[in-house]
């Protein structure tokens, strides 16, 4: 049972090498790896639910010396979400790229991205996190630049520079930690760390580096062009997973390891930035001309919501209210991951079918692809946070935490953000009703539409109604 952890990293890496060696069988290898890793992630989720935190010492060395892979409730949930999104996007990509010469280049980088995601979510060592961050950054940039046109290359280059700067700042923080506490292992660190100049400066450096890579409000300039110009399955994974992985690191640092070091004033900074991100992102999404830019700015806004939790979690004393709020944060992150990837896949279908994705003249294609428009509607519901979706529970707990912590400002921000989200979602959905001819059967391109539909349906109905296990699992970790 214990080997699931290492197989989650080893399998994608092995199959990445295999697809590079045998390009002809690439699709078969990728789909089988995707299914195997998803089963593996499910097994891990079950193991964490029953046996609690799973620890795996690589090379058999004790935690201080060697590197430990550690899976608790939070990382297991994110791993499962990543597996679902990547499985659906792989099936979608196999149809999306079927006549594209770049196909041979796409699969190895895709699997390396998956390997780095799993490695990052499982890693229990600070320097190892730096290496996984670099691997994640490089593979994401390589995939984003597959778009080929000037805009895509320019955006990919800016994304690379921002990524490298972020990783370098993170490394500087890691260096200070090693200087101060002589250890790189997260578990020992959380026991040893104490408030002091080392902890503050290291945390500040690492956080600025990670916020650069997570595109929180003032540092988000690189995200819209990068996610807007990348191929559809890539921008789905970028928005849903890559940005989420760096957010997971910020969560791990702020709420788990450095939780004593963080002061209320310090915690209010991500809160204020998050609020600004919600308002700015939603406003820009409302004014975006292209669907992909709309989705990218919506990612900026949704990340803002996630950061709103930080001041609240810091203010709430440890207890039922805080656990509920933590569960709300995680379910909001999971729902956004699934919904946003479903949305990007659907936008990819529209762009492929009509050659462009400008919202104004969307009427024809939106009505000829009812299943795609339905997928956009479902993920739109999840982005706004309307009832059947997991985001409804997430926002419920966010508001409840704001009320019990007595911080009223966030309530106003959330209300405005929700209304803006509804505005930009239904601006797109308005085009779904018109007098265009209606196909006999709603699903037109099965291989591409079903993944988008399943992802957004999972976000809207799956997490909305069956969200309770998220809270039980979180008792295992933080």
């Amino acid at each position: 049972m214990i080997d699931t952890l290492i197989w989650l990293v080893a399998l994608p890496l092995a199959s990445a090498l295999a697809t590079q060696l045998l390009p002809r069988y690439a699709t078969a290898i990728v789909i089988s790896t995707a299914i195997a890793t998803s089963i593996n992630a499910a097994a891990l989720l079950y193991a964490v639910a029953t046996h609690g935190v799973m620890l795996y010492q690589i090379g058999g060395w004790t935690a201080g010396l060697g590197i430990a892979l550690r899976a608790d409730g939070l990382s297991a949930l994110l791993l499962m979400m990543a597996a679902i999104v990547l499985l659906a996007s792989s099936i979608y990509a196999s149809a999306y790229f079927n006549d594209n010469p770049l196909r041979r280049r796409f699969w190895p980088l895709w699997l390396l991205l998956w390997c780095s995601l799993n490695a990052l979510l499982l890693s229990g060592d600070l320097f190892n996190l730096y290496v996984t961050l670099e691997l994640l950054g490089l593979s994401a940039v390589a995939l984003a630049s597959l778009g080929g046109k000037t805009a895509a290359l320019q955006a990919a280059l800016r994304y690379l520079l921002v990524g490298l700067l972020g990783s370098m700042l993170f490394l500087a923080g890691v260096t200070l930690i090693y200087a101060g506490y002589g250890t790189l292992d997260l578990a020992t660190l959380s026991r040893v760390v104490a408030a002091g100049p080392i902890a503050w400066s290291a945390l500040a450096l690492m956080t600025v580096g990670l916020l650069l890579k997570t595109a929180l409000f003032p540092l988000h300039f690189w995200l819209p062009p990068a996610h807007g110009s990348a191929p559809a399955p890539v921008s789905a994974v970028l928005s849903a997973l890559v940005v989420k992985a760096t957010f997971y690191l910020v969560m791990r640092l702020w709420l788990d390891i450095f939780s004593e070091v963080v002061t209320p004033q310090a915690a209010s900074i991500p809160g204020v930035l998050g609020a600004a991100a919600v308002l700015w992102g939603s406003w820009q999404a409302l004014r975006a001309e292209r669907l992909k830019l709309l989705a990218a700015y919506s990612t900026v806004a949704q990340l803002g919501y996630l950061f709103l939790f930080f001041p609240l979690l810091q203010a709430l004393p440890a207890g039922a209210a805080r656990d509920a709020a933590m569960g709300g944060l995680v379910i909001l992150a999971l729902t956004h991951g699934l919904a946003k990837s479903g949305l990007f896949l659907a936008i990819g279908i529209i762009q492929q079918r009509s050659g462009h994705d400008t919202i104004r003249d969307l009427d024809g294609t939106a009505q000829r692809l009812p299943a795609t428009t339905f997928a956009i509607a479902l993920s739109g519901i999840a982005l706004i946070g309307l009832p059947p979706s997991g985001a409804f529970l997430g926002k419920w707990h966010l508001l409840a935490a704001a009320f019990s912590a007595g911080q009223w400002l966030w309530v106003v921000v959330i209300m405005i953000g929700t209304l803006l989200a509804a505005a930009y979602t239904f601006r797109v959905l308005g085009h779904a009703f018109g007098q265009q001819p209606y196909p006999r059967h709603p699903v037109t391109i099965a291989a591409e539409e079903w993944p988008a539909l399943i992802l957004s349906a999972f976000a809207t109905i799956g997490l909305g109604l069956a969200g309770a296990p998220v809270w039980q699992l979180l008792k295992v970790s933080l």
Partner: protein
Amino acid sequence: MNATNMLFLDILLVIALLSLAWATLTATDARRSVILFIAFGLVLTLAWARLLAPDVALAEAAIGAGLSGALLLAAVQHHPRRALSSERQNTGKLANEKQNDSNPADLKSSVAIRWTLTLFCIALAFVLIWALLQALSSETSDTLAQSVSANLANSGVSNPVTAVLLNFRAYDTLLELAVLLTAVLGIFALSEQRTGYLPAGPVFNGLVSWLVPALILMAGYLLWVGAHAPGGAFQAGATLAAAGVILRLAGKRNIGLPVSKSYLNIILVIGSGLFLLVGLTMLALGRPFLDYPPAMAGYLILLIETAAMISIAATLILAFLGGRPRNREDRSC
């Protein structure tokens, strides 16, 4: 070499380092900053040697100054005369000569910004050094260093750095090889190989004829010596890549890379592939991933290092080539 001489050397070295860094960063022309960067790399090698980090000095000389310098020089060679500013890209309009920030509007705002940024950076530096010194002064028991030397016996190698790299933190190195692979795959996806260089004259050919074999021999030596003295896969791989770069500069058509596409794929993938294979066989034997049995640890590490050397050399050469090799019989690889 008593303390005062050492202090004198240190001060000289630090001054050299800081002035070179400042010159590199504030050079207006890209060519100038590349050359200064290479000089900075070489002086840095001295600094590592002074701080008793021979492995890192070797790596810095071979990869940091050497190959990064070669890549930068190759990039600068195709660099258009005027500075390739990012403003020109994202605004799309042809910026005026950005050579020396001549236009007043930029100057005014840039001076103000420059000053605030410089002050901010200096303040940040002093905050960092204050935190660093406090960290170093507090008696942080370097338990990790002791546990490395304690476990060195059954790690299969006597050089502590190689032991950490390939045994204790082997997982890091595996992911690092994956980073290298990602970089080369990204480069393949981006572009074709650059046009070659003119065939070399007699003198350069003479130099190449003896230098390349010497480099290959040295690479083998570095690989072998890595077990008990400074050296190892990365330095060996970089030296091998240097041989390839020199062959390329001499305009040779065959620079040691296999012609056929599948073989090239194999040598690119063999580094991380073999590493993973060894790890998984350990798993098959019921031991934790990458936990070598003490008896065979030395051989396994050497095996992994050879594969890694080949992969690193191939990756760095292909990076210098600038993209997918254009083979004679089939176009793309």
